[in-house]
């Protein structure tokens, strides 16, 4: 069942195209993460869904009802879409409890419900009368989340909600938030520019670049089978080599590699190998030579090279399994699993 349906959405500011041709569906109770570098249009997309901007093309539907197209729209305050922002945006003149109660309409059991939400958000009830400035960054975000949940929103939007937090706290808040939202059963759209945050939070990952949707799918499928080199590199360490394809075989500097059945291709192109697929062993007769090996204890940065079809090919990667490699050693490389062809 689809909560949010976006079709062919577009937005321009003057002559700049912020978004074009966006199609996206968000399933009930799922977590969608929109990820992209700054300027990719992800915040614009979020503001269009929330109702703070109006689209120039396409439409947005919530639970099958139209909420915005280029002519008409439901005002932001009537959409019942929850929103948590980067700094939390708590009202500085209201206590924690009053912040959470802000969106609750029925006065009678407002504070009872707010206290229940504090429990859900793992906030100590003793904090109810504190002022926002007395809270830590993580606590502020929990209050903002509880405040947004108080209205039982049909969809929750999170605008880089963890980026103002310390690195250690960020991961913890990410998991806590996912947990709280799962308990509340609300479908969520989160935007971020942080890869780890996106991979860690998403059921559905959406890649935006220059206002266009590049690819959408589960984090695993996107990591394994990105459509192009930029996306491949954005989602994790990538080794990208020129290759000749023939059916399920990619012929490249690493040898003849196996391609997944669905990806079978023909002709010249590029192939993606993830560093964790590499198996490296010292072998005196092998073609690859180690040109640099920096051992940093928990990790080592290794670069190896060989001559392939008259060109020098270099591969750099971080791996814990290559401890002990020395510059000048000959190594042989084997690939486990299937590799993935990329659009060039």
């Amino acid at each position, binding site marked *: 069942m689809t909560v949010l349906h976006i079709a062919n959405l577009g937005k321009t500011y003057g002559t700049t195209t912020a978004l074009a041709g966006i199609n996206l569906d968000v399933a009930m109770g799922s977590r969608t993460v929109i990820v992209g570098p700054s300027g990719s249009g992800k915040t614009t997309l979020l503001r269009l869904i929330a109702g703070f901007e109006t689209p120039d093309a396409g439409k947005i539907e919530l639970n099958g009802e139209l*909420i915005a197209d280029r002519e008409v729209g439901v005002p932001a*305050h009537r959409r019942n879409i929850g929103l948590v922002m980067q700094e939390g945006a708590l009202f500085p003149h209201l206590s924690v409890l009053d912040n959470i109660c802000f969106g609750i309409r029925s006065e009678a059991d407002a504070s009872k419900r707010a206290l229940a939400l504090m429990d859900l958000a793992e906030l100590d009830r003793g904090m109810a009368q504190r002022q926002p400035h007395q809270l830590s960054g993580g606590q502020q975000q929990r209050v903002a989340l509880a405040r947004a949940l108080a209205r039982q929103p049909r969809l929750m939007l999170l605008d880089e909600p963890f980026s103002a937090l310390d690195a250690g706290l960020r991961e913890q808040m990410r998991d806590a938030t996912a947990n709280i939202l799962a308990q509340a059963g609300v479908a969520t759209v989160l935007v971020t520019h942080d890869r780890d945050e996106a991979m860690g939070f998403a059921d559905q990952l959406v890649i935006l670049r220059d206002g266009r949707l590049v690819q959408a799918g589960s984090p695993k499928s996107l990591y394994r089978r990105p459509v192009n080199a930029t996306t491949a590199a954005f989602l994790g360490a990538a080794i990208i080599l020129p290759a000749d394809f023939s059916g399920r075989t990619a012929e490249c500097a690493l040898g003849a590699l196996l391609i997944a059945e669905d990806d079978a291709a023909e002709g010249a192109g590029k192939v993606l190998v993830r560093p964790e697929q590499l198996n490296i062993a010292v072998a005196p007769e092998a073609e690859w030579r180690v040109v640099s090996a920096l051992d940093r204890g928990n990790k080592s940065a290794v670069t190896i090279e060989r001559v392939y079809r008259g060109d020098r090919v270099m591969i750099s990667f971080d791996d814990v399994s290559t401890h002990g490699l020395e510059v000048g050693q000959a190594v042989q490389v084997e690939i486990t699993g299937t590799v993935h062809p990329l659009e060039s």
Partner: protein
Amino acid sequence: MRLYRHRRRGAWPLVLAAAIAVAALSLLPVGFVLVVLVQSGWGTASALLFRPRIGELLINTMLLEVLAVPLSIVLALALAWLTERSDLKWRALWRWLAVAPLAIPAFVQAYAWDSAIPVLRGLWPAVLVSVLAYFPLVYLPVIAQLRRLDPAMEDVAATLGTRPLAVFLRVVLPQLRLAISGGALLIALHLLSEYGLYVLIRYDTLTVAIVSQFQAVYDGPAANLMGIVLVFLAVVFLAAEAWMRGERRYARVGGGAARQVALAKLGAWWPLFMALPLLVTVLAIGLPVVTLLRWLLIGGVEAWHLPQLAVATWQTAGYALAGAVTVCIMALPIAWLAARAPGPLQKTLENIHFQVGALPGVIVALALVAVTVRVALPLYQTVATLLLAYVLLYLPRAIVSVRASLAQVPVELERAATALGRPPLIVLVGVTLRLAFPGIAAGMALVAMGITTELTATLMLSPIGTETLATQFWARTGEFDHVGAAPFALAMVILSLPLCVILHSQATGARSS
């Protein structure tokens, strides 16, 4: 869910309409000047304007400006350097005392000098009293700017072998240009529109002549045409300030906390340096306060006509409060547009709002008299007209405060409230205005204190039977009743004291923001 047609222009049409209405209202005095020019025709205008008397007034006014403005700048700079960049003893006290003259209205300052030393007449006494009354208008922006400067630049200059005085002249002073030119413009415009001070010192400026002409013939062509000369001078000053300010902006590059600047050591010469703030304090505060107390003492209990004082205070408070609230409400639309929906249209509107602030109060009064007499006679000499004059005079002051406090409310809070189901108008009142209120209240206080000591427009427009502190004070000095005027003067000084506190904290708080 109900669907609504999108508003494509962003800003609310109602807010925009309100801002346009206020802008149109603030164009009233300029419109009046243009109508007078067109209606009187070249013959009348040249006959009335090209007279030796007008030339004499023009020379008097300009002499005053070219002497008092530079002297104020030099005095303000010297005090600012001593209180901010030297190790002078009791700097905080001297800083307060350098702001304190603002609590003494210029015409009260003049009353004190005139009644203490009655032989003070003409240009130089006028310059002296003007400088004492108005130099804080340069001092305040200069110390605010000094506190914003990055001390690293001065340190670098010192490592390049520049002597402390040369550092101030070559590195610091150029960066104070905006503050100095802005403050100097304020002083120049104040001198242009000041009336009470120069009547008491017997120095005829254009404004003095216009008001006395007006008192002889209401809505006469002579006063109106002299008013045009005044507007012309104001425009010249505005252009001169824009030219002095130039296109350059002095941005501070890079972030990081500002460090404490190294203070210049005055060494054994410090008593000599302390003589300056001491002398200024004695002249600008000591003499008026002592004179006031002397008249109060001579008058004793009988001089306190308490019923009259109570009526005047009551009426003044009423005008001040009503004026302050009206002005701030009228400033809201344009301030909201400036803070939330900036654009070329908003910028133009804002400039229109601001131009009226450069016009002398006497012009605003002349315009309102002309309009009420010719177009809306029932409004002539009513409370409404006087309030309108206050609105026009203090609108820019209110906009600055209201805009700044609206801009400090994060737009994210408005969005959060909207996402939580609050309609836009409720968000504006319940969140934005609620959070901006302290700043708006400070703006109201500034306007209210301005109204409390406003003399010129009040004299020209007040309904019959009006007894404000300023008009009561003025009536008594007109009869040389120094004793009777003293309680009213004291009341105005006391009511103006918060002005100093607000302005002092705005100027010195610049470092933390």
